[in-house]
């Protein structure tokens, strides 16, 4: 019979309650774990989706605004680009330290030229990247799949009166209209979108790039770092994070995380409440039984261990299930039933703890018998709470014992058999010596303090 068996027996007394409590705890913990995992997964998925939804960094040539004038006559201003962007800059962008974070680098080239006799803006980007760069576009027909195909903005289509399957001419070349863009409310509505190579050739600017759009995955790194690194790689370019995009994504992900945490916290609270109610119910309905246990010498810790075992939380307290005093002196040999024959039995009015040396009556633990039976009273440190004991060596005198593998992995009984307790207060592990120079460890190390001088 031990604490565990006592708890087990009581549990089996009310099987249905035990089953339902166990089920409740299992469901509570299961729900919490499942919800946490789900939230984490969904958070990642949402972040990934948002990262894929368009670019969050824009790279444009560094320009300087010059005001032109002669005398008092202002002739407007002119933008002077210090350096133009080219297709080869993509290589530099993709060589930054956080290059793994760059999901896409899309070069754009814009030029104004005619389309079937009307002056419109042509926007070129690699045909294969259009769907990725603008996933929210809705198109009647398809996006251009290669050279010789164009996508008309809704306003341009109306202006040219062209639709899917029609043709557009420009610079002596004929382009097939692969599709028409639904109105977006953006500038794309008045543009012709084509492969970047076609647009560059129309403008006679091979390799020229107007700007780059970069979609960076910013899960673990701030977008500012990526912006800085691209800026270093392209000194002639101005790199800016599209703050609104970044912030809105962050806000969306944060919101999601908060929601997940809130739901998890609620579930955990309900689970905790359930355990609390179970324990309290167990305590209240067994007040008398606990009283009896206290009367027969159960320490508070043993009672708590018993209750915890019954609710399945007793594992951590396994090392503390000790009714004996903190002297390592669990009763190695129980006292005999019949001790009258040794002639030294206690009599009425003489019931002090007496050390009996009668033959065949091994009443005392050898360690106690050797030094005589101490008379415990209020000054005996073994009977005073550890926190109130005086005379413990200072913590600087505690010793850390490196433990070899031979001393690790011992059974829990060893740690319970020791009067020593880890300064960390752990219930198991990091403890257990009988002599200061011999460490018995449950793990690969042990911090032990020496015996209290008052201990026998």
């Amino acid at each position, binding site marked *: *019979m*031990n*604490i565990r*068996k*006592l708890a087990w*027996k*009581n549990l*089996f*007394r009310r099987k249905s309650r035990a089953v339902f409590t166990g089920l409740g705890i299992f469901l509570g913990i299961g729900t919490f774990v499942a919800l946490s995992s789900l939230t984490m997964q969904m958070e990642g998925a949402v972040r990934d989706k948002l990262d894929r939804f368009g670019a969050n960094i824009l790279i444009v040539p560094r320009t300087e605004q010059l005001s032109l004038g002669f005398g008092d006559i202002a002739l407007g201003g002119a933008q002077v680009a210090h350096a133009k962007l080219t297709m080869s800059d993509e290589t530099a962008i993709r060589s930054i330290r956080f290059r793994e974070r760059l999901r896409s680098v899309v070069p754009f080239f814009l030029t104004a030229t005619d389309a079937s006799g009307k002056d419109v803006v042509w926007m070129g980007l690699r045909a294969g990247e259009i769907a990725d760069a603008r996933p929210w576009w809705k198109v009647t027909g398809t996006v251009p799949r290669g050279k010789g195909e164009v996508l008309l903005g809704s306003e341009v289509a109306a202006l040219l009166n062209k639709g899917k399957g029609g043709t557009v001419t420009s610079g002596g070349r004929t382009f097939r209209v692969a599709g028409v863009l639904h109105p977006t409310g953006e500038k794309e509505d008045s543009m012709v979108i084509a492969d970047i190579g076609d647009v560059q050739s129309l403008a006679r600017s091979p390799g020229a790039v107007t700007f780059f759009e970069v979609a960076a995955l910013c899960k673990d790194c701030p977008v500012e770092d990526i912006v800085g690194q691209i800026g270093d790689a392209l000194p002639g370019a101005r790199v800016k994070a599209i703050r609104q995009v970044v912030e809105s994504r962050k806000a969306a992900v944060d919101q999601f995380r908060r929601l997940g945490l809130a739901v998890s916290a609620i579930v955990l609270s309900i689970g905790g409440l359930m355990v609390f109610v179970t324990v309290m119910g167990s305590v209240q309905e067994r007040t*008398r*039984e606990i009283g*009896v*246990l*206290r*009367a*027969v*010498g*159960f*320490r*508070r*810790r*043993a009672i708590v261990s018993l209750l915890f075992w019954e609710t399945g939380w007793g594992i951590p307290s396994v090392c503390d*299930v*000790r*009714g*004996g*005093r903190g002297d390592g002196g*669990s*009763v*190695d*040999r*129980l*006292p*005999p*039933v*019949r*001790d*009258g024959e040794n002639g030294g*039995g*206690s*009599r*009425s*009015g003489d*019931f*002090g*703890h007496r050390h009996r040396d009668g033959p065949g009556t091994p*009443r005392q633990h050898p360690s106690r018998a050797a030094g005589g039976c101490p*008379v*415990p*009273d*209020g*000054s005996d440190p073994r*009977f*005073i*709470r550890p926190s*109130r004991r005086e005379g413990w060596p200072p913590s600087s005198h505690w010793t850390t014992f490196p433990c070899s593998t031979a001393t690790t992995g011992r059974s829990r*009984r060893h740690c*319970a*058999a020791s009067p020593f307790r880890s300064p960390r207060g752990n219930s198991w592990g990091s403890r257990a010596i009988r002599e200061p120079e011999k460490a018995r460890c449950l793990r690969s190390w042990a911090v032990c303090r020496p015996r209290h001088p008052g201990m026998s």
Partner: protein
Amino acid sequence: MIAGFRLPALSADGLADFRKRTIGFIFQAYHLLPYLTARENVMVPLSPERTDPREKAERADELLASVGLAGKENRLPSELSGGESQRVAIARALVHDPPVLLADEPTGNLDTTTGEQILDLFSEWHGRGKTVLMVTHNRTNLSRATRAVHLRDGLVAEDVDLSVARRAI
């Protein structure tokens, strides 16, 4: 100061140790744990000890035999009579070999014959060196006592050394 223990100075655990080492409690209503057998009930005070379970069981069987319950070790309290339950309770009180037995109306729930048997047991253990402190309303129980302290409204009304009185008779 009791048995060398200065009780006011003791912590709750110190008091628990004091009870374990010094006092065996016997209640009027036995207070056996209903889901444990007689043997297990006697072993309950030993539960926190890290002793060999077989040794605990042997100890319990030995005590049960000494109170006349040999062969009934595996009975549940519901299968025992009142007198037998009280004997199990006595065995449980003795399992730590305390020098003092505190009995609160130990025969209160028992018929006269069974009550006498319980008192016989007390006499036997008293003869083995135990101090038995019994609270009772039954004056016939005094026939076994060596000392009687009469309480009236919480105050000591009389303290008689019955052994002296008996010798005088």
